[in-house]
């Protein structure tokens, strides 16, 4: 395939670009399979690997957790207020809460969390991997008998995924609480009705789609940037374009997942 994709190969420009595009996605899928196998391997969670994993999980999530929650809460309060006031002005206040839950908790917050984790965590991790490989650290680790994929790549992938899940989960909970407080105020009297609304929104199908969506968001954010730089051996001089390409890929995949979830929820 490498010979087919080389600039001096037998294929014309458009065909070569298409093949390169398919090859890029295939590498990402292959990389994802490799990482998944390593993630289910017990040896990845012992010794130095465990320490590296713990460090990445903590350093990629803890510093951004608080202010992301604060930021998403502020945006949520504004959107909740707009939705509630608009619904009341149209005499549809009974649907305001359901709309808030659907718009914010189901759709916007996971999407924002995924994009935020990608920009703040996954892309820097990918840059680190590229830097390590350029400086020959991977070869050095391999010479020492350490699998660089297990030691350096897996912790970063897992931490990016963890970061996405954590940001999305915590923000959703905080937004759900904020929606209740915004609509009913500081009283526990409406908790039964709110729980009922929540239950009617989160039917089994919607709950499953929501869980799968957040999971796939995490996978896309964690895998795509690192896979893009990990397999980019032959275009090492085009580092910046590879990062940009991975960003575009993340957005495309997130968009596809979001569209699929909307189709699943509302069609």
């Amino acid at each position: 395939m490498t010979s087919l994709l080389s600039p001096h190969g037998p294929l014309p420009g458009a065909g070569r670009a298409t093949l390169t595009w398919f090859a890029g996605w295939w590498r990402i899928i292959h990389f994802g399979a490799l990482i998944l196998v390593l993630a289910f391997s017990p040896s990845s969670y012992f010794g130095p690997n465990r320490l590296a994993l713990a460090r990445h999980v903590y350093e990629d999530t803890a510093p951004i957790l608080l202010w992301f929650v604060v930021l998403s809460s502020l945006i949520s309060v504004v959107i909740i207020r707009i939705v509630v006031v608009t619904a009341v002005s149209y005499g549809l206040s009974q649907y305001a809460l359901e709309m808030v839950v659907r718009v914010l908790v189901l759709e916007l917050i996971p999407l924002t969390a995924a994009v935020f984790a990608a920009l703040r965590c996954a892309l820097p991790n990918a840059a680190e991997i590229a830097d390590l490989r350029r400086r020959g650290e991977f070869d050095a680790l391999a010479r020492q008998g350490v699998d660089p994929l297990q030691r350096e790549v897996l912790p970063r992938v897992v931490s990016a995924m963890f970061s996405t899940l954590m940001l999305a989960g915590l923000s959703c909970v905080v937004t759900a609480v904020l929606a209740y407080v915004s609509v009913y105020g500081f009283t526990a009297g409406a908790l039964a009705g709110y729980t009922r609304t929540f239950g009617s929104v989160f039917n089994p199908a919607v709950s499953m789609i929501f869980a799968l969506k957040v999971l796939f968001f995490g996978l896309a954010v964690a895998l795509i940037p690192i896979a893009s730089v990990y397999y980019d051996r032959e275009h090492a001089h085009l580092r910046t374009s590879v990062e940009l390409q991975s960003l575009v890929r993340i957005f495309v995949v997130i968009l596809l997942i979001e569209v699929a979830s909307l189709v699943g929820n509302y069609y």
Partner: protein
Amino acid sequence: MKQEPSTALPPARNLEFKAALLLVLLFSLVAGTVVYLLYARGAFEESQRLVLVADDSEGVTIGMDLTFAGFPIGRVRRIELAEDGTTRIIIDVPRKDARWLRVSSVFTLTRGLLGNTALKAFSGILSDPPLPDGAERKVLVGDATAEIPRLVADMRELVSNLRALTAQDSSLASSLGNVRDVTEKLKGQRGALGMLLGNDADAKKVITALDRTNSLLARVDGLAAKVDAQTFGPDGLVPEARAAIVQLNGALADARTSLKKVDAILEDAQVAAGNARDATADLASLRAEVDTSLRKVSRMIDEVNRRWPFARDPKIKLP
């Protein structure tokens, strides 16, 4: 951006503990959410089933509430189409809320103009036996939007009627044409009379008749003047009648005087009768006195007889 490889960084303090803390936080978030959702979906409460049968389940969705007095007491679990073409709305009612449903409860499915559908239960007699599990009830449909097609059909009919009325060859247009003819005739030489009679000859006849009527009225007027003179004139009927009435009044006065005299006579007669009654009362006392005198005379004769020598022996001799 972080530039140093992980192998070059010194391990942070309590790193594993902090990472474990984050993991615990995530798992507790996920577990709490799952438990809350299960609770919100009613997984932890016992429920009984209620089947509502409707002709049309449009607007009913899975998870929709069944309300009683505005409070949700049940949730639509499934909607299915029965063999007979009706729809069966299967509702889960928690046991603690099922007490509001009785065998006499009525269920309604209402649809608003905005398409908002509501399932409601009404229990008029709460002392009735509770609704059994799996009960099937017919749901009454009150559909505001169902009125719209009928309204549209009525409007269409109305518009078609209006169109028929306002068409070029419609009866209304011909009527209006006739009205225009009539008004033109009204504006003509013979006016309304010509319009009513239709031709000038008849109108002329009517005018001649009117003239003759006028002359007749003039003669009637003269006649009336004569009658007036004969009735109310100096020697007319009315003054004579008035004189007769005066004479009649005089006769009546004489009659009244005569009657007064008769009254006086009658009063005298009444007094005479009273005297006679008194005399009759005196006669009774006179009679009593006569009786007394007679008895005295009788006693005196008896006494004379007793004292007289040739008196009879009054003794009775016994044998």
